[in-house]
């Protein structure tokens, strides 16, 4: 609770609820001291189709359990019975918030295991980087003002979603699709930049520059927003390794984790950037880090557009995809999505279908173990804010 001082009050919950000898809270529901409250799946306050089961005492949460599986489609099973190239359009639907990350992962995994990783042409690598950064940009345009949206400051969300639509227009121009692009394919990418793309993208980026300034005035100087977010949902630095926290969430707690810097992939080693960090680890810090990352992403897109070669091959010569067999092997490929480290474990057994793929999304740890821990002693009013600040995306938890 952020308000202390003359009128501030902080309830003493150190012995409440009582803890038994195993360190678990004693929650006797029949005592009428506690109430069960279900948030979700039909609830505007959860990030997508998942449920949080809260045991509350007054306005405070004493125990939280997450329930997932409402979006389970069994991708990992379905891809096991599809050809490598058939599995590709299926797999990108695993996370709807930033679908291009899935495209890159599965393309990179198949290329690496079949020995084509070095044969992807340079132009294609640049285009892949561009697409991934555009995907991050559209995710952040929804996510940064979305944090204020959890406190019912809806204007920023409306502006952000509008600008996201503009970026989706550029995607449509480049790839022909709005949300699911299927642009990065094994061996390269599907197309070159259309004529005039650069100019139109630059126009959109200018609008986004303006938006970044406006959103700063709207959110980060807003007294009520500060009151709601400073000191709420704190992640101490020690938790980062214990809970496997990654991405902006880890960076906001002062641990600099960014796959783009740590294990550079694509052309990130040729780009000039420094992932933003903060030390507080509360909702405000996380939102601020993401806002800075928004600036950085716009800058990265400009750098990519400037440094990208004008033309070149966009696809390596690949074997016939209908008869493509990949020798037995396994690999793990990771990238930095807008939410954090996003990786895929890919096993092949020499047949024409993958043996096993397993996606590791940041929400898998953020949305279950960490969320359950963070919601304890939170106010019900902050549950939604904490979930959004962890960027929990249920489809990547249950696939």
């Amino acid at each position, binding site marked *: 609770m952020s308000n202390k001082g003359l009128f501030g009050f902080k309830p003493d919950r150190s012995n409440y609820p009582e803890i038994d000898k195993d360190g678990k809270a004693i929650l006797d529901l029949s005592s009428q001291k506690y109430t069960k409250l279900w948030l979700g799946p039909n609830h505007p306050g959860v990030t997508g189709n998942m449920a949080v089961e809260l045991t509350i005492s007054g306005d405070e949460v004493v125990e939280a359990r997450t329930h997932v599986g409402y979006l389970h489609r069994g991708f990992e099973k379905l891809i096991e019975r599809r*050809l490598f190239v058939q599995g590709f359009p299926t797999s990108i639907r695993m996370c709807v918030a930033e679908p291009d990350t899935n495209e890159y992962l599965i393309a990179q995994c198949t290329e690496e295991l079949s020995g084509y990783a070095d044969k992807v042409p340079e132009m294609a690598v640049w285009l892949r980087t561009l697409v991934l950064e555009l995907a991050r940009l559209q995710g952040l345009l929804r996510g940064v003002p979305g944090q204020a949206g959890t406190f019912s400051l809806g204007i920023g969300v409306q502006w952000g979603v509008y600008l996201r639509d503009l970026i989706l227009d550029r995607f449509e121009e480049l790839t022909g699709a709005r949300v699911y692009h299927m642009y990065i394919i094994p061996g390269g990418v599907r197309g070159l930049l259309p004529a005039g793309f650069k100019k139109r993208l630059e126009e959109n980026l200018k609008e986004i520059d303006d938006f970044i300034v406006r959103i700063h005035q709207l959110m980060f100087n807003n007294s009520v927003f500060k009151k709601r977010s400073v000191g709420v949902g704190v992640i101490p630095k020690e938790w980062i390794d214990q809970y496997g926290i990654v991405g902006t969430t880890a960076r906001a707690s002062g641990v600099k984790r960014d796959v783009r810097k740590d294990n550079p992939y694509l052309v990130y080693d040729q780009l000039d950037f420094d992932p933003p960090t903060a030390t507080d680890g509360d909702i405000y810090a996380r939102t601020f880090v993401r806002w800075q990352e928004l600036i950085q992403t716009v800058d990265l897109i400009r750098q990519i557009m400037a440094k990208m070669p004008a033309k070149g091959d966009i696809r390596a010569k690949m074997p*016939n995809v209908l*008869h493509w067999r990949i020798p037995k092997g*396994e690999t*793990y490929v990771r990238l930095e999505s807008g939410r954090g480290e996003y*990786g895929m474990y890919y096993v092949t057994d020499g047949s024409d279908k993958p043996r096993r793929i397993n996606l590791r999304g940041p929400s898998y*740890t953020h949305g279950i173990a960490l969320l359950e821990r963070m919601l304890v002693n939170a106010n019900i009013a902050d549950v939604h804010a904490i979930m959004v600040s962890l960027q929990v995306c249920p489809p990547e938890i249950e696939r």
Partner: protein
Amino acid sequence: MKAIVQEITEKYNLQNAVFQRDNMAFVEVEKKFAIDLVTFLKDYHQFSHFVMMSCVDWIEDGQFQLLYLLHNPALKVDIGIKTYLNRTEPVMQSAHHLWKQIWTYQREIKEAFGIDFPGSPNVDENFVLEGWTEIPHMRRDFDTAAYSEKTYFPREGRFTHDPATYMREKLYPNQPVTAKKNTNE
């Protein structure tokens, strides 16, 4: 990286250490030493970031393969520790005490493959499915297409082409069928 793999190879008598990339290795370890090795790497070599835990069903060998993937943020290297379980009675030592998110993975693997992790919190609860009566759904011998056909009222008139045959018929109707082998091999 090489030195670490060398050290654990000698210490745990490992076979088949594979360097997939310069900064990523996969090692195989006996089932009873797997958690020991994970703990050793965590405590002595700062592999403090637990990336993921996964399971592969090698039904033809009658084995499940468990994978613990660890990351060292300082050296920026990964080690994947693989271990094999018997497919008929899959039980594995729980590692939930090492990292706080592992119980989630164990709960999922319990549901998806039926591997038991005694002592892991909530391991018996449903993770993604509700009211599931078939065998664990990620096992290779569970046929999802047949189950779906049997259960979910497929719409009449929907059919699937085999892409290779379909393309040959559409694009090269007059060409004789020559069994062209995979160019990759």
